[in-house]
């Protein structure tokens, strides 16, 4: 009995030590999360498609900048029309900013005319930590081959000012357009900016 307990403990310990960590140019670690409509999604469900992960917190001023300006929704619409899967992920813990009921999420998403594929709830922060998500927004792009090809900020203007959206260098657009042109992604990482993820 003790032997079995020790074995299980070791398996759990080793599993946690060697938990997958998202790394550029390596296979993106798989995950399974439930969306705001109660549907379950795994990253592996979208094999063969380019996938964007967008860390979100509707009350963060940096997220507001990109939603109030419609920048984020326009990107979502433009690329989901091209068969990109766009997953907004919220890793706000219970009681923390950005953690809403499913009803409230859907209400806010509708108000913003959000065009993502799904809004995934990562309340225990497991997926956020697996991907090293630090800020909202924090953007990741996974190629159709399942490889992480971009991690970083949405653009190069680390401000909360809506006026700065115009003229910013948008790294997500740049990376996705390069993928669609059959090129390799030229800027694979940038410094993310925003509110801290509320783990």
């Amino acid at each position, binding site marked *: 009995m003790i032997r079995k307990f020790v074995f299980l403990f070791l398996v759990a310990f080793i599993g946690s030590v060697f938990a997958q960590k998202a*790394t550029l140019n390596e296979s993106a670690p798989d995950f399974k999360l439930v969306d705001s409509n109660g549907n379950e999604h795994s990253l592996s469900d979208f094999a063969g498609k380019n996938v964007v992960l967008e860390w979100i917190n509707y009350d963060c*001023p940096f997220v507001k900048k990109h939603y109030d300006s419609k920048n984020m929704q326009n990107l979502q619409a433009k690329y989901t029309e091209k068969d990109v899967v766009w997953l907004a992920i919220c890793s706000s813990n219970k009681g923390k900013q950005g953690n809403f009921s499913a009803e409230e999420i859907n209400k806010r998403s509708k108000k913003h005319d959000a065009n993502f594929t799904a809004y995934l709830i990562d309340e225990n922060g497991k997926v956020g930590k697996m991907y090293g998500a630090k800020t909202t927004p924090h953007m990741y792009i996974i190629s159709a081959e399942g490889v992480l090809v971009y991690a970083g900020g949405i653009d190069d203007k680390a401000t909360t000012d809506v006026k700065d959206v115009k003229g910013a260098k948008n790294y997500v657009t740049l990376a996705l357009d390069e993928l669609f042109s059959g090129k390799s992604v030229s800027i694979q990482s940038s410094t993310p*900016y925003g509110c*801290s993820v509320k*783990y």
Partner: protein
Amino acid sequence: MLLRKIIQIFLLLALLSVSLTAQTRSNASAQIVFDSYSLEINRTILIGILIELENDWHIYWRNPGDSGMPTSIDFDLPDGFTISEIKWPAPKAFEYDGLASYGYEKQVLLLADLSVPENYNLNPIKITANLKSLICKDVCIPFNTTVSTVIDLANNFMVEDQIIRLFIDARNNLPEVKHNIDFSVKVDDELITCIIQNPEINPAEIESLYFLPYDNGIFKNSIDQKFIQNENKTELTVEFDHFRIEEPKEIYGLLIYVFGNLDKSKKVYEIKQLIN
């Protein structure tokens, strides 16, 4: 002559009425203060942007760390006047849920040198600072404000005691740029080892030691940096950011010693070392 004097006084009063009130936005306020000066002796005036925060709120350093936003200040000055880069007092490192940020709580005075042109006629001048920043506790809000003040250049100025204390504290918290630290680095795949020999420090008194980079995105932001004593040298390990934006060419930022004495005193140095 009298009319001219009246107009001058009126102008000065009008400018002062615009400027004297500290600009307040929600949980923080900002104002411009300046140190004592005598233009006969020195054409440079030390000014400060005093930012005061409600309890539990913080504002960010030039490198905000894992989240937040760098504080930035643009000045509007009369023609011919120039101002230095901001001199940043050493920030505090905060860590929440494994994410590290660098900034200031309660109060900070950001310093800059204002240079008065030689040929200036010494009329009062108005200077304006446009502050762009973010303040956070468990939530964050933008703190963007414009503050102005008037400086009477015709007369010497002696600052009040309360403000003198702020300038002294801010100066004491600036990093030492000229020092005799022997600093070298050894690069590994995912980390860098800084080998430090500091003749001003007794290694046995160091409680913690950490490096805060000026630029974000290359080194892992952390307040939990490991160091060991190796004879008279200290070896500090700094990890690279897992998603670093480029391979580091230099290590540039602050080296902060915290001592194990009762008041947990600090010593802060600026370090700049090329990486081969």
